[in-house]
């Protein structure tokens, strides 16, 4: 039986307001039916320093434009006037939340261009550091998804555990946020004494945390009712819009560089990234939750399988005079947000000719976010944005 129009709250509003022949909504601001509001750059719901120009009709968004550039430092230009080794302190600041993939792609690009083979032990340590970096991001990111719906409790617990992982980083590398541990040819040091045991203690805490998070977030009726069906990405969009990592895996498409192009020691590790087909905010949170589980498992595997001692650095020329042969390459790895790649062109001098860093946020935050926000509620912008894990400094660099 058809419901009466007056009492229907679930009517299909996808064709409101009127659309032109290209499917774009006709928005006439002077008709007083629409309101233009900016979310960001000073807005607590926006992931970092970026802004969204929203045209809303009531609580419903009819048009969205992403504005970036608030964090532009011109890294790619700065690196063109620095020697390769001087690029490292610059490069890691490109994505602040997860600096290690930056180090890895940069040193991997240098190694690929100059044909250096990295020793086994260094590969193990690099794998460990990359997984630890993923762990510390996800510890904040998974409960942070509930935080966008004002459930901040899990975020508080997760942040505490993240601080513990940062302590481990400090132990291993000396740095809390920026590590500069991975260098061309290898890594900077071996594991300190007792590192594995202390790490294992922290992993046990994380196991307990995972159970609590499951109860707090995934079995929460309000969270489920809000996150289900929100920000749906059809499977066909994955290639078209350039969706990577957890967001693609939530749509049922296997996008994980660790599995498709195994680098470092991932081919020797036993793991299977979680995929689901719901492709909404809830599914993306679930995928990241399972990623977190998998990362804990991977760290245990790495610590069990890695040798105690070994060569950690290949012979490299004096870094001050190191000239990289002419050529170009694209090196990539899997960050917590998806494929993270660096395109590097060398002209044979001691400074890179061109470095271009491509993170998943570039495609997620621009065309995809603009599209997903259409017909969403303004209350849900933060949730959709966080579920795509946008990281503004990586968009504008």
């Amino acid at each position, binding site marked *: 039986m058809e419901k009466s129009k007056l009492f229907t709250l679930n009517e299909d509003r996808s064709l409101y307001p009127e659309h032109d022949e290209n499917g774009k909504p006709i928005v006439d601001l002077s008709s007083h039916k629409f309101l233009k509001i900016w979310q960001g750059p000073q807005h607590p719901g926006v992931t970092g320093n970026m802004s969204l120009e929203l045209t809303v009709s009531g609580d419903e968004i009819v048009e969205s434009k992403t504005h*970036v*550039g608030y964090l*532009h430092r*011109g890294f*790619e*230009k*700065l690196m*063109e*006037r620095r*020697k390769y080794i*001087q690029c490292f302190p610059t490069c890691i600041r490109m994505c602040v939340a997860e600096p290690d993939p930056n180090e890895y792609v940069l040193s991997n690009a240098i190694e*690929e261009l100059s044909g250096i083979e990295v020793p086994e032990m260094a590969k193990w340590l690099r794998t460990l550091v990359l997984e630890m970096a993923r762990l510390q991001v996800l510890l904040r990111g998974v409960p942070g998804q509930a935080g966008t719906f004002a459930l901040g409790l899990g975020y508080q617990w997760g942040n505490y555990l993240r601080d513990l992982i940062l302590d481990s980083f400090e132990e291993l590398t000396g740095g809390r946020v920026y590590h500069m541990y991975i260098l061309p040819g290898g890594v900077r040091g071996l594991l300190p004494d007792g590192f594995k045991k202390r790490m294992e203690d922290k992993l046990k805490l994380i196991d307990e945390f995972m159970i609590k998070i499951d109860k707090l977030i995934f079995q929460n009726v309000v969270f489920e009712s809000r996150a289900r069906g929100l920000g749906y990405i059809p499977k066909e969009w994955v*290639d*078209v*819009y*350039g969706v990577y990592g957890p967001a693609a895996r939530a749509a049922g*498409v296997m*996008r994980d560089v660790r599995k*498709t*192009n195994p680098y470092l020691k991932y081919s020797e590790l036993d793991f299977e990234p979680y995929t689901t087909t719901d492709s909404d905010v809830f599914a993306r949170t679930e995928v990241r939750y399972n990623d977190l589980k998998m990362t804990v498992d991977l760290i245990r595997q790495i610590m069990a399988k890695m040798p105690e001692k070994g060569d950690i650095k290949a012979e490299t*020329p*004096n870094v*001050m*005079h*190191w*000239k990289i042969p002419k*050529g*170009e*390459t*694209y090196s990539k790895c899997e960050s917590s947000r998806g*494929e993270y*790649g660096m*395109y590097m*062109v060398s002209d044979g001098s001691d400074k890179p*000719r*061109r470095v*271009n860093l*491509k993170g998943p946020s*570039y*495609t997620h935050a*621009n*065309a*995809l976010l603009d*599209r997903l926000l259409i017909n969403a509620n303004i209350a849900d912008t933060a949730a959709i944005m966080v579920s795509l894990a946008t990281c503004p400094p990586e968009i*504008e660099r």
Partner: protein
Amino acid sequence: MQDTIKNLTERFGASNMIEKKPGLIFITIEQSKAISAVTYLRDIEGYTVLTLLTAVDWIEDNVFQLTYLLNNPEQITEIGLRVMIDREKAEMESAHHLWPNVEVYQRELKEMYGINFPGSPRIDENFILEGWNDKPPYRRDFDTKEYAENNFFPRPGRKTNDPAEYMKQKMYPNNPSDYTNKKYNPNR
């Protein structure tokens, strides 16, 4: 992969192929055939993901190199198409109809390199910079340090060392001749 390269070479006159590592190929394409080659790769060969679109400034040859890096998620291969365009009249056919993200890349290139893509949506809008009135900053002839010194207020007292000289003093304070020794420094 080999078929794709053959087709590219025959139909689109691709040249200068370099296989960097298994599954990553860079190949040069003429400017006039570039977009049709990209369309061909996307529609026929399954290179459905545009990984990146960027430019390199070869100022000494007076060209910009545009790189379209395409990814084939089925075969797990990547092809980088290099397109050389004239630096003086930097203009390229727009590819915004192929992927929705291309528009963003092209806006960035317009802003950072001054390469125009006529017909691309929102191409003249600011993407990153705001009120910029100098040369496009990623061009090689734009000196960022000079710009920073002229426009911002450098705090006096910042010392700049030539890293090589500085390391020489730090590492071989007593015997600078070690520095030129082949054993320590293979580049000398």
